[in-house]
């Protein structure tokens, strides 16, 4: 190994170390930003080392450099623009989009290794896997981003024979991949493989409903990581292998967490067809049981005299752009001694931890955000639980067997001394079932748009406590 080779490999090792330490620093909000910047330093190091390697080898043609520079220029502008302008509510779409391009790039990197039909099996196997996983992720992530953005219907898209089509595509992918691994086919087989895998990615994500998106995004993230690791095997590049493995692990952990939080198995989610689309509300009603509607003034009195208030935000809060109104109400309450915390269910947003980011954007300090277990401990001590835009995750029916959400871990809102629910109508959540919380005698329903309702509450509390 030449000196330069050794230096480059050491640089890759240092970059991989930066990635690991950077992720380690993300275990606390106070150090997380530093962690991300360490990770950036690692990335710059890896790219710089590769640059030196290419310059030294002298194999790159002038046209090659131009193509590389042009591509990098376009990518930088697109990435910067997207990262700067996208609102926090659209973060899941953006992450999906970055996932798609990452997966696409990983798949394309393997193509030159397979087109001349030669080479060792130790390269052909990961190359074929890379193309399959990367391409499926590319197509799947684009569909997921489309669903989240509302370009593609958020409801599960199922048609008769969909499973057969999916099975056929998987078979075609496997056959083309197998041929490539055995060294047959070259360019044609790669093309067949790519097309089949693209269609397979679409077919996999289309039948999955909007409610399952947090799982899908996590899973696609894990897939991109795996594809990048495979690309590392193909190019015999350790930093790709390590980075890919880290992302794969992260995606796998988040996938498992999200599936647990919904009490749904991964195969069931992937088979699809569950739940409805975005903001869907089936015909309302709670089986005839009466609900108690309250005015903003009544609710404000309850809040103003409470010592402990736990807010339970759901995606409806973000959809109504009401985070800031919520924070304002919390500030008013806190200013005269009421303790306000936020109970955040793992699937409160559209991706893992989404609700925390939305609240952080509205200047809610992270020390007031509670995870499921801590939140439930506080809910049983709370004077008032204020539910805004959350539905299924508060439904006590989850504790009973025999319904769509049985066994799902929920926030024990019904254990608070009193409950106020801000909701536009009696519509259903994703699961499409009645919420017994709404007919609980201690629950007051404030029928209003989240933002308007919270603003009315703030105003009423202000006049009460002057």
């Amino acid at each position: 190994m030449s000196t330069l080779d050794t230096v480059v490999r050491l640089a890759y090792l240092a970059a991989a170390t930066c990635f690991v330490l950077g992720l380690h620093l993300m275990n606390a909000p106070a150090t997380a930003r530093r962690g991300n910047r360490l990770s950036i330093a690692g990335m710059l190091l890896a790219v710089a080392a590769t640059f030196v390697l290419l310059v030294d080898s002298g194999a790159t043609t002038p046209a090659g450099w131009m193509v590389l520079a042009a591509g990098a220029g376009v990518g930088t502008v697109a990435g910067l623009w997207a990262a700067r302008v996208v609102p926090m509510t659209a973060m899941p779409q953006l992450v999906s989009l970055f996932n798609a391009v990452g997966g696409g790039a990983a798949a394309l990197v393997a193509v030159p290794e397979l087109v001349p039909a030669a080479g060792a099996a130790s390269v052909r196997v990961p190359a074929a896997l890379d193309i399959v996983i990367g391409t499926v992720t590319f197509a799947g992530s684009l569909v997921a981003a489309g669903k989240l953005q509302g370009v593609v219907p958020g409801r599960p898209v199922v048609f008769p024979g969909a499973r057969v089509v999916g099975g056929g595509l998987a078979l075609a992918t496997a056959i083309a991949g197998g041929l490539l691994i055995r060294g047959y086919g070259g360019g044609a087989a790669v093309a067949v493989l790519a097309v089949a895998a693209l269609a397979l990615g679409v077919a996999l994500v289309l039948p999955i409903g909007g409610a399952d998106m947090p799982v899908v995004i996590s899973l696609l993230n894990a897939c991109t990581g795996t594809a990048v690791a495979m690309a590392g095997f193909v190019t015999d590049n350790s930093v790709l292998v390590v980075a890919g493995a880290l992302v794969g692990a992260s995606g796998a952990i988040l996938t498992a967490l999200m599936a647990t939080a919904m009490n749904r198995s991964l195969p069931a989610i992937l088979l699809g067809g569950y739940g409805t689309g975005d903001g869907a509300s089936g015909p309302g009603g709670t089986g005839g049981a009466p609900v108690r509607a309250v005015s903003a003034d009544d609710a404000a009195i309850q809040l103003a005299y409470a010592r402990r208030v736990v807010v339970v935000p759901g995606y409806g809060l973000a959809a109504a752009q009401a985070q800031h109104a919520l924070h304002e109400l919390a500030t008013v309450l806190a200013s005269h001694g009421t303790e306000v915390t936020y109970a955040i269910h793992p699937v409160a947003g559209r991706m893992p931890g989404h609700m925390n980011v939305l609240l952080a954007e509205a200047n809610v300090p992270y020390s007031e955000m509670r995870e499921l277990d801590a939140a439930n401990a506080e809910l049983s001590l709370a004077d008032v639980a204020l539910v805004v835009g959350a539905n299924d995750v508060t439904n006590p029916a989850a504790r009973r067997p025999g319904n769509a959400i049985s066994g799902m871990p929920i926030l024990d809102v019904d254990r608070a001394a009193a409950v106020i629910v801000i909701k536009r109508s009696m519509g259903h959540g994703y699961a499409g079932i009645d919420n017994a919380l709404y007919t609980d005698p201690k629950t007051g329903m404030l029928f209003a748009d989240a933002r308007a309702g919270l603003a009315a509450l703030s105003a009423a509390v202000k006049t009460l406590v002057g």
Partner: protein
Amino acid sequence: MSAELLATLSIFLLALLVGFEVIGKVPATLHTPLMSATNAIHGVILVGAMLVASVAETATDYVLGFVVAAFATMNVVGGYVVTDRMLGMFQSPASQR
């Protein structure tokens, strides 16, 4: 199986285990920035993109190189910038009130 492949496989497996260990400790509050940061990290495929473009000779190769470079750079730059933007929003209680 060659010694090199075995060594790479070991690196892969160990990195996976390190990943589970390190990432398992990240609190739920930071899961979105975590995912976006790991998203940026897999943009390291940019290194692979550079290697592909470096051996490009035909027109197809060049098109391929351009697309890979654009995809990977967008992934890296966008991923890191948006993660930093998000993490900047997480305020400590001290900086408030």
